[in-house]
């Protein structure tokens, strides 16, 4: 019995330490969250943790660096993590993150309606997508119906949509992806099932590489990824340009959301305002290939209704 004593003792201490760690952590996050709202006027301080969408990550990261460099906000720390829109929304509604970055409206992802109601939406930029094909497809313009036929597997050869005699290879996103949801909702108008033989890649870089190299490939990419290695397809005769998106004539676009749980505290609000300021919107947002919010002449709600 005596021999085993240290082992038992250590087990007990260890369990206690673990338990202590656990409760400490909880207190920590709650503390940080309430801290910011407490000391508003004098000097802003606090920790902002933004988690989620990898599509929005570069912008938030760059804006966060600039924000912390501003003298006024030097006591605020902004941490940015990827992980996907689903992770962002989960963590912000569980209170683990201050901001949840998402490519889609929370209504489209979260199943629990009560949780959606708690979240406040801050739209910081717009991302537009264009259908792209391999250069040998021989098509420059596709109608909505043609795209639906292609992505549902009804049309299997480019010659059926006025192109070369070449089999169509679909380079898609995984069914859970926000980019795919946007493309299906606004370009195709319906959810598509995965068809046998299609390719799915999650990173835009890989999609671009595969579409550029695979004969007969078709996919879709955010405007910032488009270049001469691909054939950018017009949608219903409309070219995917920033001007067309802003004017509302090109429909395949989505907001980039930064959700907070309830109204943001002072530090977080300052950060969100900073991202929406001309400083960021006119420089970083356009530089990184997003479309600034200020330029948008149309608005859209979660149900997809467009208002001028």
């Amino acid at each position: 019995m005596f021999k085993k004593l240290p082992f038992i003792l250590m087990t007990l201490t260890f369990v206690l330490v673990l338990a202590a760690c656990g409760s400490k952590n909880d207190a920590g996050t709650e503390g940080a969250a309430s801290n910011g709202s407490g000391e508003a006027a004098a000097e802003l301080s606090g920790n902002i943790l933004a988690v989620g969408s990898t599509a929005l990550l570069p912008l938030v990261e760059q804006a966060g660096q600039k924000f912390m460099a501003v003298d006024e906000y030097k006591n605020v720390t902004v941490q940015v993590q990827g992980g996907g829109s689903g992770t962002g929304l989960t963590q912000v509604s569980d209170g683990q993150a201050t901001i949840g970055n998402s490519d889609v409206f929370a209504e489209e992802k979260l199943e629990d309606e009560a949780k959606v109601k708690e979240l406040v939406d801050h739209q910081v930029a717009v991302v537009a997508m264009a259908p792209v094909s391999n250069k040998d497809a021989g098509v420059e313009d596709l109608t909505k119906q043609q795209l639906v036929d292609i992505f549902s597997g009804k049309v299997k050869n480019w010659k059926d949509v006025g192109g070369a005699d070449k089999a169509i290879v679909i380079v898609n996103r995984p069914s859970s992806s926000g980019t795919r949801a946007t493309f299906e909702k606004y370009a195709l108008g319906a959810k598509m099932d995965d068809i046998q033989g299609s390719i799915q890649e999650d990173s835009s870089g890989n999609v671009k590489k595969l579409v550029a190299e695979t004969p007969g490939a078709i996919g879709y990419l955010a405007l910032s990824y488009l270049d001469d290695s691909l054939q950018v397809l017009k949608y219903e005769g409309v070219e995917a340009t920033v001007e067309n998106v802003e004017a509302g004539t090109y429909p395949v676009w989505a907001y980039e959301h930064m959700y907070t749980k309830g109204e943001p505290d002072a530090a977080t609000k300052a950060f969100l305002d900073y991202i929406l300021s001309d400083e960021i919107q006119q420089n970083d947002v356009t530089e990184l290939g997003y479309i600034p919010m200020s330029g948008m002449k149309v608005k859209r709600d979660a149900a997809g209704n467009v208002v001028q």
Partner: protein
Amino acid sequence: MNNKLKPRRPLKEKHYWEEWTGRIYTSICVVFLIVVMFSIVYFVASKGLSTFFQNGISISEFLGGKTWNPTGEPAFYGALPFITGSFITTLLAALIASPLGLCAALFMTEIVPGKGKKILQPAIELLSGIPSVVYGFIGLSVIVPLLRSIFGGTGVGIAAGCLVLAVMILPTVTSIMADALSALPKGLRESSYALGATRWQTIYRVIIPTTLPALLTGVVLGMARAFGEALAVQMVIGNAPHVPTSLLESASTLTSVITLSMGNTTMGSVHNNALWSMALVLLVMTFVFVILVRLLERRNRV
């Protein structure tokens, strides 16, 4: 009981405390490991099983269903395409890597033990240090276009996946096989030569049969690595959620679908839980691999 043989208290107190510090330190590490291990198993199991117990998806639908469409109406949660994809890629990768690994190991230990080992060993160990995303990118830039130019089609698929995996598990397979071969008692080899056997006869009649269980351990550990590999495979395999009909057709593995979808789904949703169930399948498979290795080791000892 044996107080008379061993005095309870050592002559110097210092040694007594040294002994205790060591014990306590090791105990902490052991307890930590056990706690971490059990919490991981508990976490994955509780999440993975809630698909069946809370969301009411039957286990047979999950394991045997061919349709995976979690965002559809109605939603289907059949993981069979991913399970078959994982098994086919793993088996094929092991089939390619094992003979190569065995030859490399024989070369290092039997054929050119001195120089061969000096050159080949570091080269092979270097392979295991390359990050898997690099393997994936090489696969996407070299293997996929190569397969496309030879067989036509897209080049993306199980064939590309298992070729990438084969290279990735080669270091594991080779180094374990080389260890097994060099651990063989010298006497066996010498007596075979003394009987007049040639080197080749010695290798395939004496060395390989005696070390077979240990060689298989290398293969199984390689397979365990291949089964759990995600990133590199995800880049080249195509990830379409269907049971593939040819090696050149896009398919998915359990790991690739988890990495693709985990971040995009919200915690607690059925889709997310189904992904955890797949993680549970992976965990169970790893247990199976570990048990296999244990059994092989036991046979090796006899």
